[in-house]
């Protein structure tokens, strides 16, 4: 595999490598860390007998009545944190934490791109990344409003 030098050819983006390497690292670690939390939670749940205790209860995975979501489903960060601080620890809260981290990873990738573009002297793309991040935040706020 060629190193970063290939990206800096004449006419190519002069500042490519550092920004791309940083985004790649954030996406990679975001995926790894969240995947580990998801796996850890699932393993703890299985070790606690959760998986075998729920034999033939798959139909409960179907959507219940609108207002009461099943205790396994987390709908806010507060619920996840309560599950994490509960003793004994709620293993599915660990999984939910991993899922939340996973959902946040792309936004994190965009966020770190902004200062990286600025450092690379590319204000135009710093601005574009800023607009994308702002739109992500707007849609998050809309989600909060809907809830």
């Amino acid at each position: 595999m060629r190193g970063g030098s290939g990206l800096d050819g004449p006419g190519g983006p002069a500042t490519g490598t550092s920004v791309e390497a940083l985004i790649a690292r954030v996406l990679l670690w975001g995926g790894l860390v969240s995947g580990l939390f998801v796996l850890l939670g699932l393993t703890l749940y299985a070790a606690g007998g959760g998986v075998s205790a729920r034999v033939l209860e798959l139909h409960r995975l179907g959507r219940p009545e609108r207002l009461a979501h099943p205790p396994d489903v987390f709908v806010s960060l507060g619920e996840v944190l309560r599950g994490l601080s509960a003793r004994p620890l709620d293993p599915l809260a660990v999984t939910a934490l991993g899922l939340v981290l996973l959902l946040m990873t792309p936004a994190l990738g965009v966020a770190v791109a902004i200062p990286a573009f600025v450092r690379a002297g590319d204000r135009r793309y710093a601005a574009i990344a800023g607009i994308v991040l702002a739109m992500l935040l707007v849609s998050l706020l809309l989600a909060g409003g809907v809830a």
Partner: protein
Amino acid sequence: MELSTFVVAVLLTSVGAGTVGAVLGLGGGILLVPILTIFYGVDMHYAMGASIISVIATSGGAAAAYVKTGLSNVRIGLFLVMATIAGALTGALLAGVVPVRWLELILGLALSYSAFATLQQINLELPRELPDDWLAMRLGLEGVYYDRRLDQEVKYRATRIGRGFGAMYAAGVLSGLLGIGSGAFKVLAMDHFMRLPMKVSTATSNFMIGITAAASAGIYFTRGDIHPLIAAPVAIGVLLGAYLGSVVMVRLRNATVRKVFLPVVVYLALSMILRSLGVRLF
């Protein structure tokens, strides 16, 4: 089915969905949602929540590798994703106002045309030289990647940026209105309008779909559509599958990727036309 069997089955299915998604620049929802609902009896809402997880996990598993090697073009991706998210927000606002059936029909016909156009250039390995687009020059919408299969550095520059940007906005509106993923449209717009190499199109789409999905992830989460016992095996399976897919994809020819992509477009076109007639494939 026992829950443990269910978890393992969903995990294995997700490895497959992640692999295919990573190669084709899709989130895997097109495979996962029907399989989860039809074969595993999962509720549609939980299946959609799992699909959002799948999209972001595909990005996490594959885009990291693609971005690092330059196959995903971050600038092109960020520029176009502005259009897609703006479109998705518009689509959410328009929900309930626009006659959905006509949209489905128009989309189905547009996709049929895309399938035809894809078929016409099915064996094209690299795009032919095209006149420079001033916007692409100004915004530096270009790049270089080392193609392992061709064993050469491939230089490319996007063209017809206006049309590509418009198509991305439309894709965002439609995915917001119709509740379908937009990965396939992103690939088509980059392949057809902007004339990027096929692998750059799918890899850049992989980077973009994660960001687009993140925009609606909050809604799914607070609505309670993300069930840990369904989403967990999906996340782990798709992360693994996407990593596998990224290893496979860099070794494929551009033409091969396009050949695998064509059936997806045909399927989407058919399902949209059928939906406009009131028939749902799943």
